């Protein structure tokens, strides 16, 4: 893979988005996990808890605002990144979720509006049994409506290469 082209992409912004954290969306997310924790769904319980209101499960940051209908929720890789990857034989269709790392600083409350900023944190190649693989790490920083740091997320995506 052309190391120079890739190193130029590291640190680049992938985009800034706003997220709305709705009470109903929190409940549907928790339902899908099978998580019955009353902090995420029972208003009376949450009011009496030390949080004072419904919070989101760690890992839920709401749904993006101001997106055109049908647009994907996931952040798409920028062309400056996909260009050199495709030249090196990597195919977007082979992309698999590799893992996630979170730092949680503050609770996310129902009613919050979050701003997320995503950068390309790292791109690394590794040769495994199945040939060459590429690990792409995107780091997203979430701030709430008060400008306070809520969480950082580092998501890794694995792509496989056709070339040896």
């Amino acid at each position, binding site marked *: 893979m052309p190391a120079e082209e890739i190193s130029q992409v590291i640190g680049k912004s992938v985009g800034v988005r706003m997220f709305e954290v709705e009470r109903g969306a929190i409940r549907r997310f928790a339902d899908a996990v099978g998580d019955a924790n009353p902090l995420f769904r029972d208003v009376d319980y949450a009011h009496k808890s030390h949080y004072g209101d419904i919070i989101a499960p760690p890992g839920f940051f709401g749904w993006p605002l101001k997106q055109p209908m049908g647009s994907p929720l996931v952040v798409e890789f920028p062309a400056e990144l996909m260009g050199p990857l495709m030249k090196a034989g990597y195919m977007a269709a082979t992309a698999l979720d590799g*893992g996630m790392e979170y730092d949680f600083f503050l609770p996310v409350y129902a009613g919050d509006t979050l701003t997320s900023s995503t950068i390309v944190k790292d791109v690394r190649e590794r040769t495994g049994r199945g040939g060459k693989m590429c690990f792409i790490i995107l780091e997203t920083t979430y701030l709430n409506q008060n400008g306070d740091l809520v969480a950082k997320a580092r998501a890794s995506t694995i792509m496989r290469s056709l070339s040896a």
Partner: protein
Amino acid sequence: MKKQLYWEDVADGGEITPLSKIATTAMLVRWAGGSGDFNPLHYDKVFAEGAGVGQPIVHGALKRQWLIQLMTDWIGDQGWLKQFSCQYRAMDIPRAMRTMTDPVDGETWLCKGKVTKKYIDGDAHCVDCDIWIENGKGEITTPGKATVILPARN
């Protein structure tokens, strides 16, 4: 109100209360709607075959949330999940639906964890843990780590 776990209750090497989970194709569609990940890899057999995976697989992010629930259930309302990480090392296959409500027999996953270190950082009472998901064969498909802050009795 659930029983609250305190830092003093935790010992090095201690076990986190396990959490068992199943995944059905219906649950994965629900997860797609709840999380916004509509990748057909997780609910469309033809697409999954074309992608070389063979059959629909459980979303990594759903397994991540199972492990997060393992932690939030264990630490209780007053605990704080400070750091979390996990890697999706192997694919997990959901059960097909036999009726509208019942899946066919299949795998049950176990989310588990172990305390690796307890310590005080400033005024935070911290606990580091190894966490993981085991499939029905007892193989670890999703290893991870977590650091939590627990309330202290004194």
